């Protein structure tokens, strides 16, 4: 069996856990960013495997972020607990939205998820309890801003997401999502309740996005309508998945690492308009690189195997 794969993963995780012993604050912060987008990219890809695309990543991040901050400030809850509550609420909203619209596909679904993002952005901007346009500032960042603590938190979320993505690939969910993406009529005729699986996967991935948004808010210690619902939360994961390779766990991971590094460099080279490069990456990936970078690796691997 392919136990070596899990061994490598375990070793990587152990090394990653020990990194704060060796690295300074800046590299750790950089890694935090990578983990944030890695979790978002992998979770976005998990739903994409069914052929459906959510443009609500930013929305669920924002919902998670605002919920966790409100829970900490108004209810005095432990930040970690409030992150979980943020994830739960994001999942709950995804359940309502998914239940209402997942009989429709693709563009309709994508647009509704985008509309949900906008509605929540407007809501938090207009309500007093959410601090209006200025947002809310937490008195303390999580772990009092300790770099190692926040690093471990983000690492845990990223690893959790990756393991969940594996579970998706190793269980009946893999069959359900692949068949839905391939041919819904065949899937339904084979007894698959497509709607049920789409809702389940949408809820789970949205909850992860809510959790990431919550952790983000706790780490940086504030939420605002613009930063918490930032379009980057949907733009970057999408680009990462397309660049790294969709329909896999490792594709989005590779994409997240690569693009986060590229993004840092690009911000210095083209301060305004570095998003242009993301657009070009997306177009190139769709037209000429359908499997992404991971797809190239797999092809080379298959050739070597033969």
């Amino acid at each position, binding site marked *: 069996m392919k136990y070596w794969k899990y061994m490598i993963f375990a070793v990587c995780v152990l090394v990653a856990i020990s990194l704060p012993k060796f690295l300074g604050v800046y590299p750790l912060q950089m890694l935090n960013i990578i983990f944030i987008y890695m979790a978002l990219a992998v979770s976005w890809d998990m739903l994409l495997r069914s052929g459906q695309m959510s443009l609500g990543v930013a929305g669920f991040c924002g919902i998670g972020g605002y919920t966790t901050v409100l829970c900490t400030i108004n209810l005095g809850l432990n930040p970690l607990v409030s992150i979980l509550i943020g994830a739960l609420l994001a999942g709950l909203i995804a359940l309502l939205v998914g239940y209402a619209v997942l009989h429709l596909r693709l563009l309709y679904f994508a647009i509704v998820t985008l509309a949900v993002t906008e509605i929540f952005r407007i809501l938090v901007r207009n309500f007093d309890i959410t601090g209006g346009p200025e947002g809310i500032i937490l008195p303390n960042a999580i772990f009092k801003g300790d770099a190692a603590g926040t690093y471990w938190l983000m690492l845990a979320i990223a690893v959790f997401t990756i393991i969940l993505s594996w579970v998706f690939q190793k*269980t*009946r969910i893999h*069959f*359900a999502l*692949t*068949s839905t*993406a*391939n*041919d819904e*009529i*065949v*899937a*339904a*005729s*084979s*007894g*698959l*309740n*497509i709607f049920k699986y789409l809702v389940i996967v949408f809820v789970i991935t949205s909850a992860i996005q809510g959790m990431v948004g919550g952790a983000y808010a706790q780490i940086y210690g504030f939420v605002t309508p613009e930063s918490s619902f930032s379009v980057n939360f949907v733009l970057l994961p999408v680009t990462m998945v397309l660049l790294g390779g969709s329909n896999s766990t490792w594709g989005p991971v590779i994409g997240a690492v690569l693009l986060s590094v590229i993004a840092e460099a690009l911000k210095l080279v083209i301060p305004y308009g570095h998003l242009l490069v993301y657009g070009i990456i997306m177009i190139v990936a769709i037209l000429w690189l359908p499997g992404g970078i991971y797809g190239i690796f797999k092809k080379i691997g298959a050739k070597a195997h033969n």
Partner: protein
Amino acid sequence: MALLKTTNLTRQFGGLAALSDVSMEINEKEVVGVIGPNGAGKSTFTNVIAGLYLPTSGKIEFKGRDISMTLAHERCHLGIARTFQLMRPLHGLNMLENIMMGGLFGKGHSLKVARNNAMEICQFMALEKVERPISAMTALEIKKMEIARALATEPSLLFLDEVMAGLNKDETMEMIETVRKINGQGMTIIIIEHVMRVIRELTHRVIVLEWGKVLCEGLYEDVSADQRVITAYLGEESEC
């Protein structure tokens, strides 16, 4: 008691009735052929029974239960399985995984049970090298795989929608044997087919559709001699 019974089954698309007032009964362990010229409503009939379209009016009873308004996957759970006129393999899965779909979702088996059952069905259907991707399979193998996928749902009624189309003579013979074997295990089968020899060799009874209506039904020999059926087919040919 009839396994499947339709009463005045009608399905309209826009103003056009693709199926109108179709009443028929299918008994257990029977092999029934449904024939008719192109556009007679054979495919619509399959799709309405399999739950892809809901009927505009009329009633479908299966095992004595009214299933007119149930959805496709629910009908699969009840025991109606089908293949498709055009080959529809799931390209993202390999041969065995395609067949496992039926056990996993039709019967709710675990991965392990579904896999074992799929292996058994592969053996029954004489499908080899089961871990192959779809791209490495021949048309005959894909057709067999689709039947296997339907069988994996452990149905009591199996629809075969033009499974012989595009096969050569030897392949057709092989397929006829396979279908006979499936029926030998007690399966009720409805065959929709253009190849008349298949109908003659396999079916106990034939139902002829024309313009969405039942034209006549009976034994193959009687039906094929019926003047109305000949006109229906010849009429179609002369139009071509």
